[in-house]
């Protein structure tokens, strides 16, 4: 586990907090405590726990309602919720599972059982996270894949409309990639692809999101970036690929890329398809204009 897992306990009894802390002392997990539902929900939003131990019966907002609120939040949806309930309390267990809970533990606690259950759910959560990461990666280049790009683009467009930031987008295509594949074979083609992917990743800024869109085309999301700044990033990528020392070892005449740039202005409304089309058209102009260069899409306001 690279990051330490997080466990949040929401229970109105201080005694339960102490017990859980003592019983789970040997687990590699950071424990956060809350003694009421709404405060617990706020804490959950802040710390994004991997596992949540949630008391059913609490004064004020009860555990079922908190569970429903948690499962409604995109960023908390994968949190494993374990309900805490008294042995004799007739709670609707089916309702808990319907709301998205993963398990129940009854009070009084059996220390070993509590520990084993929490531990097993921590492991499940770790695997869920791993799977989600893998599902969003391109296996050839290690970059984000098309699926991740679509989701992330959707989020960024949403944020743009809400917070009025600028958003840049680059479409990057390897020049004559088909010819490289035909002449040197696919294994070399794959190496070129990986080499270019690494260079794009290194050249981009920390906040830029680099994805392999498919074939020999890469896309790059540049949050909070206007057309001028995006063009600067695109130009650097073209230069860095052209001047790289490693790529000519694979392909004699060297490798170049063409870039299309598009950007959305503050407060500008556009759908993803239209935005993508603008970047793609700019890329097409780069290709027609002799490749190994950058073109910027026409802004909407100039039309």
């Amino acid at each position, binding site marked *: 586990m690279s990051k330490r897992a997080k466990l949040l306990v929401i229970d109105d*009894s201080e*005694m339960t907090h*102490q017990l859980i802390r003592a019983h789970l002392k040997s687990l590699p997990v950071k424990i956060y405590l809350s003694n009421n539902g709404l405060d617990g929900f706020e804490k959950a939003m802040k710390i994004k726990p991997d596992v949540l131990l949630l008391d059913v019966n609490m004064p004020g907002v009860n555990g079922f309602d908190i569970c429903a609120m948690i499962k409604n939040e995109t960023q908390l949806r994968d949190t494993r919720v374990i309900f805490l309930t*008294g042995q004799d309390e007739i709670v609707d267990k089916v309702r808990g599972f319907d709301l998205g809970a993963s398990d129940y533990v009854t*009070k*009084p606690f059996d220390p070993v059982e509590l520990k084993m259950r929490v531990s097993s759910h921590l492991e499940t959560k770790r695997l869920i996270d791993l799977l989600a990461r893998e599902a969003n990666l391109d296996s050839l280049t290690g970059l984000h894949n098309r699926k991740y790009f679509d989701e992330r683009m959707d989020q960024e467009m949403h944020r743009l409309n809400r917070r009025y930031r600028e958003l840049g987008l680059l479409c990057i295509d390897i020049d004559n990639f088909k010819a490289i594949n035909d002449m040197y074979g696919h294994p070399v083609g794959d190496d070129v692809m990986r080499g270019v992917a690494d260079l794009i990743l290194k050249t981009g800024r920390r906040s830029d999101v680099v994805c392999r869109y498919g074939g020999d085309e890469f896309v790059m999301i540049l949050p909070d970036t206007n057309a001028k700044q995006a063009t600067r990033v695109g130009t650097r990528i073209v230069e860095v690929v052209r001047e790289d020392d490693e790529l000519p070892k694979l392909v004699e005449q060297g490798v170049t890329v063409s870039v299309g740039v598009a950007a959305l202005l503050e407060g500008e409304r556009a759908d993803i398809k239209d935005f993508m089309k603008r970047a793609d058209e700019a890329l097409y102009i780069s290709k027609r204009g002799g490749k190994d260069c950058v073109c910027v899409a026409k802004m909407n306001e100039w039309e």
Partner: protein
Amino acid sequence: MDQGHLDQRWREVYGGDGPIYSTLPDGPDERELLSFFVGEMTHHIKGLEEGMREGDMQKLKMHAHQIKGAGGSFGFDILTDLGRELDDLLRGEVTSEDEIADATERLLGVCRRVSVGHEMG
């Protein structure tokens, strides 16, 4: 658990007025937990006494509920049993004040005897 069984167990195991010890295994962690628990008990004893004096059923119920939830987990099953007895009475619709007073006294009696440490032998 029915009332007769509880009475019998109560007399057999917890009759008298000596200290009552936890059934948790002995160890530094457990001892730390138990000193915390015994400390918490003074807060609950105070709450139960106030609840009785003021006729505040909500207060009684809150303390009974918390003692029920935690008692067994700290190695005091009898607290969970007696806490449940009072909690159930307070939930019931046809409960006499005498019954509630008896159950509260019984719970209080055990709360006051809860001790850190372990039974010898």
